[in-house]
């Protein structure tokens, strides 16, 4: 009879820029989680596996999937608290809490991301300016560390590890459960108004000047490689529509078949297709869509859902996303230099978006009272040259690039852009001098 062999799994980051064959364990009991962790020399926890970078696996590390830990451990409507296991997805959490007209407002754009993953990467949502990152919603965290065992983390207990864990990319141990502070949910329906813009600087100023209005504001701007119509775009301002009472969540049910895998094999994003898409997208909103329209919860909070073909069209070549925080004062001259680089390298930028951000930047956490710029490029040598040159601008303008988005970010750039990088390394080693929890991301950045 054939012997039972353990399989190695081929895991890829969502951006497909890093692939490795790793041992993947899928515990479904607490004692199994302990056993698997203790046996592994080096490991990292894995949530839903939607990170753009390889944060949940690495060549030498055991990947510990938390998908079976998806239960609600505590809920108090009165205290507005919920404790959930790390493998619970954002959509599972919302499906429950919205029934009580409560939620956390720091919701990332894709609903199938796990709570553990969201905490480990300190996610933010479309309302980042208003609500900040998920850090603001966390009351306490329970982790399991192979050397330190079970640890409760909060502002009152193990505060230093609590601080290292939020946005710590799973390097302090396995996040097992999280207690979240819920807030009242104002309404299930939204009203979106569209403002036209013809420059990125004007877009930034619009966001800056409308900070206080409690709207969700983000933009879509054209960044064609020939710089024609550079910055033309739309600013979406969404607010709760209290007049429209109908409960219309239209929540996505399953993430199956939303991505087309390696189909098409070739990248269909090129100068012509980007230009054509931008032209139609802009004119659809200019001429066919009303300037003020009602919108449902899912469209506003999860804008990516239903538009996954966008990622599929990158084919096998995949894409690189760069999301950066830059101070309002420096953004104008940064955009001028950014334009010069585009003029020189002619990269294919498929998407460019702007939104506000708030909070305090510390350790590896992507937050601060700054403006957030996001753009995607096709992964090819020409675009890599462009984005590598852009790194120099990041350093010059004290930009904070997102670690969970940019899969090619080098240690040298990270060290210069993250002023708390060495402090994080030092504090992490004080806690875990063996550095047992490691991933491709942590190895690349020497964390």
């Amino acid at each position, binding site marked *: *009879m*054939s*012997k*039972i*062999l*353990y*399989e190695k*799994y081929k895991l890829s980051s969502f951006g497909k820029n890093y692939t490795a064959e790793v*041992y*993947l*364990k*899928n*515990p*479904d*009991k*607490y*004692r*199994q989680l302990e056993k698997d962790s203790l046996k592994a020399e080096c490991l990292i926890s894995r949530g839903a596996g939607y990170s753009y970078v390889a944060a949940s696996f690495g060549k030498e590390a055991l990947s510990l999937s938390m998908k*079976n830990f998806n*239960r*609600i*451990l*505590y*809920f108090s409507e009165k205290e507005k608290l919920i404790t959930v*296991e790390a493998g619970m997805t954002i959509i599972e959490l919302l499906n*429950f809490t919205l029934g009580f007209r409560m939620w956390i407002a720091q919701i990332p754009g894709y609903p199938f991301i796990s709570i553990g993953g969201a905490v480990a990467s300190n996610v933010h949502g479309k309302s980042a300016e208003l609500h900040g990152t998920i850090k603001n919603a966390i009351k306490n965290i329970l982790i399991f560390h192979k050397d330190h065992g079970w640890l409760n983390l909060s502002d009152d207990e193990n505060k230093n590890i609590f601080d290292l864990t939020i946005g710590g990319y799973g390097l302090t141990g396995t996040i097992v459960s999280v207690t979240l502070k819920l807030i009242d949910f104002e309404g299930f329906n939204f009203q979106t108004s569209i403002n036209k813009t013809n420059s990125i600087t004007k877009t930034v100023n619009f966001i800056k000047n409308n900070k206080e209005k409690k709207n969700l504001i983000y933009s879509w701007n054209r960044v064609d490689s020939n710089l024609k119509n550079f910055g033309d775009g739309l600013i979406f301002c969404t607010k709760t529509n209290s007049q429209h009472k109908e409960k219309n969540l239209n929540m996505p049910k399953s993430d199956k078949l939303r991505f087309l895998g390696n189909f098409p094999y070739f990248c269909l994003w090129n100068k012509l297709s980007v230009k054509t898409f931008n032209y139609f997208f802009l004119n659809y909103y200019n001429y066919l869509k009303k300037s003020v329209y009602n919108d449902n919860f899912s469209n506003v909070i999860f804008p990516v859902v239903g538009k996954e073909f966008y990622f599929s069209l990158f084919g096998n070549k995949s894409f690189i996303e760069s999301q950066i925080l830059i101070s309002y004062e420096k953004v104008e001259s940064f955009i001028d230099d950014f334009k010069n680089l585009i003029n020189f390298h002619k990269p294919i930028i498929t998407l460019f978006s702007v939104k506000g951000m708030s909070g305090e930047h510390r350790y590896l956490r992507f937050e601060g009272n700054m403006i957030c710029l996001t753009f995607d490029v096709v992964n090819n040598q020409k675009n890599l040259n462009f984005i590598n040159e852009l790194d120099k601008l990041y350093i010059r303008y004290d930009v904070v690039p997102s670690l969970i988005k940019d899969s090619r970010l080098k240690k040298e750039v990270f060290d210069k852009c993250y002023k708390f990088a060495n402090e994080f390394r030092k504090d992490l080693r004080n806690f875990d001098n063996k550095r047992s929890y490691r991933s491709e991301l942590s190895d690349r950045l020497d964390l």
Partner: protein
Amino acid sequence: MSYLILGASSGLGKELAYILAKNSNDLIIISRDERDLKAIKSDLEIKFEITVKYFSVDVSSFDETKKFLYSNLNLLSQIQGILFPVGMMETKDEVLNDMSVSNSLIQANMGAVAYFLSKIFPIFMEKNKGIIVGFGSVSSTIGRDVNAVYAASKRGLESLFETLAISALPSKLKIQFYTIGYLDTNLSYGKKLLLPKGSAKKLAKIVYKNLDKNYRKIYYPSWWAIIVFIIKILPFSLIRYIYKFL
């Protein structure tokens, strides 16, 4: 309605607990792992507004099983149905097993079910109603060199359920027995298997749908019925000969 599930903390047992809870049934869940039982209890009670009682019992121990049954007999008289998705495997399970290993395997896979049945069956017979569901394994079809005692216990369990079905003939008891192939549970996770895995969630749905049916012996995934049939009609001497080449 309330059901008792023996082995409810993971895999098929957990799925059965969820489908029963979703359909507003109170539950008594038993397994070895108190922390997991506690987590399942919270989750089910919060999501489905039912009552869940849990007991941490290591059914691979005769003494623990006996102690539980004697101190909770009143509990058994309150339930409408009992499900046994319980099982235990050892990485190394062969003829040369240490006696304590074999004893635990026999106890967890068959013995504990027999003891529970000895207490619940008379209660159900007296009431002339009740549901009993057992779960065997395709590995029990034929003797093998891996999971030896596990497979033997599961074969014994199948025989026990056949006896039960005959004993319950004059009554309105509903008895079902499922022979299960590979499932997508943690027991098979990451293992290279010759045939595809079935979904534990789907099986739980089938079990729930069949709860009020008369005696049934069901293979899941269903194509295992053909494989088992072929193996059973082959002479053992031929199978032994084939083994030589594997």
